[in-house]
């Protein structure tokens, strides 16, 4: 199962049956930072960046992939039929995990919080995996982890660079230790890339917190983050609750982790694609 195989179900992201879709249509979108209202149409032209304050709106997996690869129609999605399980048969207090999964699948038209596949960025073939926060908060389900691990395997098997765009609130309670162990699984699988001397670029997007930061997201050979994204293990709210103290503003943002030596650069979404290509050329061009 560790070999890179083409997607089992014909169509990819671009096909009619695609499981990746834009967030629900709305005519205007409010900016969470400056409160400005922008026409959805306009916002999509600016890569979902607020034209007034520069706020980087959260993207769907489909948007993210579209913005990164040369040609979304040539992006080959994998593992879409690898769908989430309910390993604990989690039912408690009107919370039925199986139902929640269905609901999220319907709302997002994703089957899990991770979309993985192969595409090109400025002509360079990469294994790309993208997390979608809209799917149960981008939490690490067993199959989300497996899809990430398979994206790593594909990079190793094909000897191509790996790019993972993280967006996650952390663990998926309803899978408990199955969720937790994905951190170990993904961290372990990354070691395969060492043998093929291909880089792993980790891109942190708003928000990347919890277990994801305590595993693959922090293990990039190069780590980039979008401006002002929430990035950290606990996130400021959890810390404030835990220590009953206010934190300095800016704690656990991209800029905070840059200052503390955890990442290489904060990159505006408008230059992300080009920056990634520039970095990749150091490893792939001779």
């Amino acid at each position, binding site marked *: 199962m560790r070999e890179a195989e083409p997607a089992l179900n014909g169509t990819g992201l671009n096909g009619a049956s695609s499981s990746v879709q834009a967030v629900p249509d709305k005519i205007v979108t409010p900016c969470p930072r400056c409160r400005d209202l922008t026409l959805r149409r306009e916002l999509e032209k600016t890569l979902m960046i607020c034209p007034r304050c520069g706020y980087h709106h959260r993207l769907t997996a489909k948007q993210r992939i579209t913005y990164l690869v040369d040609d979304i129609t040539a992006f080959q999605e994998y593992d879409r039929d690898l769908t989430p399980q309910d390993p604990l048969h989690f039912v408690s207090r009107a919370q039925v995990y199986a139902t929640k999964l269905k609901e999220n699948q319907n709302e997002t038209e994703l089957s899990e919080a991770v979309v993985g596949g192969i595409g090109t960025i400025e002509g360079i073939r990469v294994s790309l995996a993208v997390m979608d926060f809209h799917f149960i908060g981008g939490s690490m389900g067993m199959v989300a982890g497996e899809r990430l691990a398979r994206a790593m395997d594909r990079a190793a098997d094909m000897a191509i660079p790996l790019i993972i765009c993280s967006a996650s609130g952390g663990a998926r309670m309803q899978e408990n230790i199955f969720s937790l162990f994905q951190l170990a699984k993904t961290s372990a699988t990354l070691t395969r890339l060492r043998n093929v001397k291909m880089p792993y670029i980790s891109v942190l997007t708003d928000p990347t917190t919890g277990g994801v930061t*305590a595993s693959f997201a922090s*293990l990039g050979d190069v780590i980039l983050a979008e401006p002002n994204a929430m990035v950290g293990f606990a996130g400021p709210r959890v*810390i404030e609750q835990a220590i009953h103290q206010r934190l300095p503003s800016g704690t656990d943002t991209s800029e905070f982790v840059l200052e503390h030596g955890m990442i290489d650069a904060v990159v505006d979404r408008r230059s992300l694609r080009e920056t990634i290509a520039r970095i990749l050329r150091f490893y792939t061009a001779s």
Partner: protein
Amino acid sequence: MSYELEFEKPLQAIDKEIQNLKKRGDRLRPEDQTKIAVLERELAQRTAEIYAKLTPWQRVLVARHKDRPYTADYIRLLCTDYFELRGDRRFGDDRAIIGGLASIDGRHVVILGHQKGRDTKEKIEANFGMAHPEGYRKAARLMRHAEQFGFPVISLVDTAGAMLDLSAEERGISESIAENLQLMAILRTPIVVAIIGEGGSGGALGIGVGDRVLMLENSVYTVAAPEAAASILWKDSNFAPQAAEAMKITAPELLQLGLVDRVVPEPLGGAHRDHHAMADQLRQALTAELNELCDLPLDVLCARRYEKWRMVGIPASVAAV
């Protein structure tokens, strides 16, 4: 020994009666002695009954019991010799994770684990077992040391989670755990992990990857504390018992799910009732595992460990895809 847990109250009543009788000392009548024997049998029986049907939440309470043996206790009880290695060589010596060179059953190992702290002073020093980045980096140093010199690693997990404060974020708590996950996945020496009390989230996993993962009978392993899970799922931490139930956090459940490899039985009434008996059980389990692991060629050991974690928890139906 006190009975502090609510569900142990029936035991306390019997125990009190026994203690009262025993107080008579020399004045103890033969019928008292019979009575004591009867009561002690009853105490044992009732204890066994209660502990046989602990709810997951009750197990959480046992796992967090203030008299439960901690890493330092196991080191004292298990090791015939021990030399503590301190510091991460970078920033500090985190007392929330301790470890060093040890001899167990004639075998030289590196042992390490979370230390919650027994008395108030030690609790504060140890930050209640919640480690900062320097704790995980110290653990990494000790594990690399073990690899370099061919010592197997024993890692004892007992933490509510990694430390959540500004200084932990500033120094990269996530990076420190992530790096350990990777290190432990490929370390070229056997690693046996035992969850001895609370296995709390990334903070537990940060020293929790190995060839074998053992759980003490009343230990628990959670991706988030039941209180936190209840808060997130139902906005009310009072539903922690329900969360504990639904999340399958106990040793027998996790063994059945194939997520851990062995349950180490605890003495009657829980590990906190008899540290020596508990340490004996743990020693036997560790030695059994190490005997097997140390016989494997390193390449085989490492390939198996990689496979174990690469495939962890993937049901056959998924693995087949």
